[in-house]
């Protein structure tokens, strides 16, 4: 029992790290652009299909397909911003919520027609790694390494590059940044794109774990929201930490009860945190 618990916990933690990446994207978009991206799940789902088809058509290793999919996510985000979000970025929240929601509908609706709701999966036989009394599937380890790489990359971008400084300036005070000559429109679009890039990266990694359908994006989007709320809206490290927490929860719950309770527990946690700790466990920013 203990070893089962340990195995589930470790598995959950590692998967949670990947969830955290998706959540980081969501929280980055909130922190910089100040909107909730309801198309996040669609990007996650499309990334899964992206990796699948790249592997199918070119036979390349899924991990090598990942950077391409991530860049696709960046481009998609930029385009979504310019087409749908730009006009409502300063409007009341209702407008931007519905705008990104509409984008979600368009993406999922079209994708459902193309891909149907059948499950797809990427077969990846990588074996496992023995670590004491648990055997960790290699997919989790590779994904964690990639996730760490992504996090480091994001940190370097935000804190060690000129662009990153501009992003932080716009996040801090958009008007002041503009007055200082920073092209806020482009920075906002870029930030949105980076957020969706993270979503795409996460989606690609999740595709190496589980089978997926076009509707999976919705579930992962909800997980992202739960994590973001746990970690504090606007707090990227909090999102990572929140991902770990959620991952462990997802790993542990099925050991004790039926796995179908997981979404209910996640949602319950979501509401409770929103009510009790609106700034998340780690503190966010309004």
């Amino acid at each position: 029992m203990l070893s089962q618990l340990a195995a589930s916990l470790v598995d959950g933690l590692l998967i949670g790290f990947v969830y955290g990446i998706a959540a980081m994207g969501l929280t980055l978009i909130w922190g910089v652009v100040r909107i909730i991206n309801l198309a996040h799940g669609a990007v996650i789902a499309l990334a899964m299909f992206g990796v699948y088809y790249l592997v199918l058509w070119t036979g390349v290793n899924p991990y090598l397909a990942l950077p391409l999919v991530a860049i696709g996510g960046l481009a998609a985000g930029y385009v979504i911003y310019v087409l749908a979000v730009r006009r409502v970025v300063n409007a009341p929240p209702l407008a931007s919520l519905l705008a990104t929601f509409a984008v979600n509908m368009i993406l999922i609706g079209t994708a459902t027609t193309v891909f149907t709701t059948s499950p797809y999966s990427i077969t990846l036989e990588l074996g496992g790694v023995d670590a004491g009394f648990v055997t960790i599937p290699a997919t989790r380890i590779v994904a964690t390494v990639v996730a760490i790489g992504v996090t480091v990359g994001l940190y370097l971008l935000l804190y060690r590059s000129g662009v990153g400084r501009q992003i932080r300036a716009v996040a801090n005070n958009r008007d002041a940044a503009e007055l200082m000559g920073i092209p806020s429109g482009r920075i906002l679009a870029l930030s949105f794109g980076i957020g969706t890039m993270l979503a795409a990266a996460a989606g690609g990694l999740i595709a190496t774990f589980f089978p997926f359908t076009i509707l999976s994006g919705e579930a992962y989007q909800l997980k992202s929201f739960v994590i973001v709320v746990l970690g504090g809206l606007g707090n990227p490290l909090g999102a990572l930490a929140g991902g770990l927490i959620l991952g462990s929860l997802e790993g542990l719950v099925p050991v004790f009860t039926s796995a179908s309770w997981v979404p209910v527990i996640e949602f319950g946690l979501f509401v409770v945190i929103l009510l009790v700790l609106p700034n998340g466990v780690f503190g966010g920013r309004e």
Partner: protein
Amino acid sequence: MIRGAALEVARWLRNPGLWPPLILVAALGAIPAATGSATLREGIFLLLMYVALASSLNIFLGYTGYVSFGHIVFFGLGGYVGFYALTVLGWPLALAAIAGGVAAGLLALAIGASVLRLRGAYFALATLGINEAMRAFVSNFGPFGGPTGMSLDFSIYRSFGGPTEALWLAYFSMLALTIVAVLMSSAVKGSRFGLGLFSIREDEDAALVMGVRAPSAKTIALVLSAVIPGVIGVLFFFKNGNIEPPDAFKLQTSIEIIVMVMLGGFGTVLGPVVGAAGYERLRSFLLTSDPFKSLQLTIAGVVLLLIILFIPNGVIGWLRARVPRLRGTLQ
């Protein structure tokens, strides 16, 4: 005091904005009655249902500005409770329908007491999950039939004089409910309570400072917007003959109702009526023309996006802005 209330009602009835939506609904409703056609009856039943759902949602979404993505939860829960009362408890239809409405209202009250204190985006996120949680719960809830739901014994229609009579009864009940929804929508909009709701929508913090009791006002608005969908749910599934979780808590319908409200013009009485009627026609047309059948969600998304970006106040809102003279009648 009765005289005061009577004056208020008279003033409300004199408001020209009340009549276009009412007349439109009555006219639509009269068509099947006039022609006696069963196909028209079924088609207009659905149309009226959407008008009622959109008008109800508007009382919350349009007047307070809070986005409720999972509004269909009231339809589903009400439907289930009423269906249960009808089939298991053997209650008469009217009572079962009221039970559905009450259940929906109670759920709204619970949401109001807990989740409504969250603002804008947070609240919207929460509603995304409420519908899903309710569906998951009902799917596991034995008395409601679990994942396979419940169905009714068709002998129940005999008590109405046969299936055709039952269907006509359901139809006229739906028409009545739609009229009630429109009346409620108009009454709230023209009331002091409604003014408070609009102030919350425009700037909740400023409204609080001016003395608007926002927490209770929002909850009341949610309850008012939930009750009719609850009753409609019972009616719909009574006609349907059975009820299952995915049909009762269909997220897509929830989304489409939002599109209808936004298309017609949120915050107006006529808007949801026009939006629902227009969207429902578009939808029916698309469903019968092959390439578009599976693109329903996509098209709804495109419609919604175009509205948000270019005519955020919907068709009626746009008309009101363009033709100020019509502002009195188009409300």
